[in-house]
C-alpha cells in the first residue's frame, strides 16, 4: 500500500502538475509584484511632479541643475565630440564607395539630432548623475535621514525628489543640444579636416537637411528621457530599504545598479516608441 502511494507521488504526471503549479504560481507572484511596483512608481511620479512648485524649491532646483547639468557637461561634451568624429569617419568611408561624400554633413547632423544626441546624452547622465542620485537617496534612507525629514513634517518627496526631477527636465535638453553641436563639429573634424572632405558642402548639408522638427523631436525625447531617468533613479534610492534581496549598504549598491540598468533599458524602449510616433 505504502509503496503504491510512493509510486503515485512520484509519477511523471503528478510531477508535471506540480511543476506547472509552481511555474504559474511564481509567474503570478512576479506579475503581481511588477504591477505593484508600477502602481507605486506611477503614484510616486505624480506626487513628485505636483510638488515641483513651492516654497524653497527654486534654490534646490538650481543646486541640482548645477550637479546634474553643469557638472555632467564635460563628459557629455567629450562623448559628443568622439561620437561625431566616429560618425564622420565611418560615414565618409561608406559614402565614398558611392561617391556621395557631399551628403556627410546631412547624415551626421540627422543621426545626432534625431537619435544619438538624446539617447547617448541620457545614458551618460544616467551613468554619472543618475547613479549618484540613487546612491545618495539610498544612503539617506539607510541612515534614517528620510525618516528624520518626516518627523520634522518636511515632505521628503518635495524636499528630495521633486527638485531632482525638475532639474533633470531642464538639464537633459540643454546637454542634448550641446552634445548635438559638438557632435556635428566632431564630424566636421574627422570628415573634413582629417579626411579632406569639402568644408562648404558639409556645412551646407548640415544647414539644408535639418529642419526645426528634427531639433524639437530630439529635444522632446530628451525631456521624456529626463523624466524616466530621474524618476527611476530617485525611486530606486527612495525605496532601497524595501528590497527583498539585500539590506543596508548592499541594498543601496544593488539599487544603484538596478537604477542604471532599468534607466538604460527604458531609454532605448521609449526611444523606439517615440521614434515610431514622431517619424
Amino acid at each position: 500500500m505504502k509503496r503504491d502511494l510512493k509510486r503515485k507521488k512520484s509519477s511523471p504526471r503528478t510531477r508535471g502538475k506540480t511543476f506547472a503549479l509552481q511555474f504559474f504560481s511564481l509567474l503570478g507572484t512576479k506579475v503581481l509584484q511588477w504591477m505593484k511596483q508600477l502602481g507605486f512608481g506611477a503614484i510616486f511620479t505624480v506626487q513628485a511632479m505636483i510638488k515641483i512648485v513651492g516654497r524653497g524649491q527654486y534654490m534646490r532646483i538650481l543646486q541640482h541643475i548645477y550637479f546634474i547639468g553643469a557638472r555632467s557637461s564635460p563628459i557629455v561634451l567629450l562623448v559628443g565630440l568622439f561620437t561625431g568624429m566616429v560618425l564622420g569617419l565611418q560615414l565618409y568611408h561608406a559614402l565614398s564607395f558611392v561617391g556621395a561624400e557631399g551628403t556627410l554633413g546631412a547624415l551626421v547632423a540627422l543621426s545626432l539630432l534625431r537619435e544619438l544626441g538624446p539617447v547617448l546624452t541620457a545614458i551618460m547622465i544616467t551613468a554619472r548623475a543618475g547613479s549618484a542620485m540613487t546612491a545618495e537617496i539610498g544612503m539617506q534612507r539607510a541612515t534614517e535621514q528620510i525618516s528624520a525629514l518626516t518627523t520634522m513634517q518636511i515632505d521628503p518627496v518635495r524636499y528630495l525628489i521633486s527638485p531632482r526631477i525638475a532639474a533633470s527636465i531642464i538639464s537633459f535638453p540643454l546637454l542634448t543640444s550641446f552634445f548635438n553641436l559638438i557632435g556635428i563639429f566632431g564630424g566636421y573634424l574627422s570628415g573634413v579636416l582629417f579626411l579632406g572632405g569639402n568644408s562648404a558642402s558639409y556645412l551646407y548639408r548640415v544647414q539644408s537637411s535639418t529642419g526645426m522638427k528634427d531639433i524639437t523631436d530630439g529635444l522632446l525625447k530628451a525631456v521624456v528621457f529626463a523624466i524616466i531617468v530621474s524618476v527611476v533613479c530617485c525611486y530606486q534610492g527612495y525605496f532601497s530599504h524595501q528590497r527583498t534581496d539585500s539590506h543596508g549598504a548592499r541594498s543601496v549598491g544593488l539599487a544603484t545598479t538596478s537604477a542604471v540598468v532599468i534607466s538604460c533599458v527604458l531609454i532605448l524602449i521609449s526611444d523606439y516608441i517615440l521614434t515610431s510616433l514622431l517619424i
Partner: protein
Amino acid sequence: MNRSPLIEFKKVTKQFGEKVILDRVNLQIFEGEITAIIGLSGAGKTILLMHIIGLLTPDEGEILFQGRALSSMSKKELSSHFARISYMFQHNALFDSLNVYENIALPLKEKSSLSKTQIHQKVVARMQQMELTDSAQKYPSELSGGMQKRTALARALVTDPNIVLFDEPTSGQDPVRKNAILEMILQYKREFGFTAVLVSHEIPDIYCVSNRIIVLYNRRVVFEGTPQKLQTFAHPFQDEILQSQRSLKQELQRTGGPECKNIP
C-alpha cells in the same frame, strides 16, 4: 486623583513578517512628565517611539492623543499633532550634506514662518548651549560621536516642541556631557514644561531624571510607575539584570580581575 493621559497605547500590536515586536501593549504618558522606557536590547523601545511620532502605525490596537484616536484624525489634524513632537534618533539621522548650523536650522527654515535673523538667533543659542559653536561649519562626518549626538539634540529642541522623544540621548557621551544633557532636559522641562519620553540603558541616571518608568519585556509592558516603585518590582527582568551582574562578578573572581563593590 485620576489624571487623563496625554498619550495612551491601547492593546497596540506591531509585527514585521512573522516577528511580533509589540504584543498588545498598554501604556500611558502624562503631560509635563519625563517618562523613561527601559528594557533589554531588541525589546521594541525604538519601535514604540516610532509609533508615537507616526513613523509606524500599529497593526492592531489604538494610540490615543488626549483621548482621541490617531486613526480617527484627519490628515491636517495629524500634521498639526505631529508638528508638536520632536524626535531625537538613536543614530542621530543628521544630514551628511549639511553642516552643523544648517542641520539645526533645517526644521525652522523649512517649516516655521520666522525671519532669517530670528532663525539665526535661535540656532546660535542652541549651539552655545550644546557647546557646538566652534563646530558650526563642520559636517557630521567631521564630528565625534558625542558631538553628533549633541547636534541631533539641538535640532530636536530648536523648534521648542511640546513633546520630545529621546532615543538614547546620552549614549556615547563622557560623564560630564552626559550629566549636562540630562541637566538640560530637566532645565528645558522646567522652563517650557514639555513632555519627554526617554529611551535609555543608563538605568541609574534614569532613576534621577524621570517621573515615571515603563519597562518593556518580552514584547509587553510589564511595569508602569515611579522609579521608587520600580525598586521593589519583582519580575524576571530584574532577575535577569541581577543574574548578569552575578555572572560578571564570578568571571572577575575567576580571572582575578578587580573586585566590583557595586555588584550585589
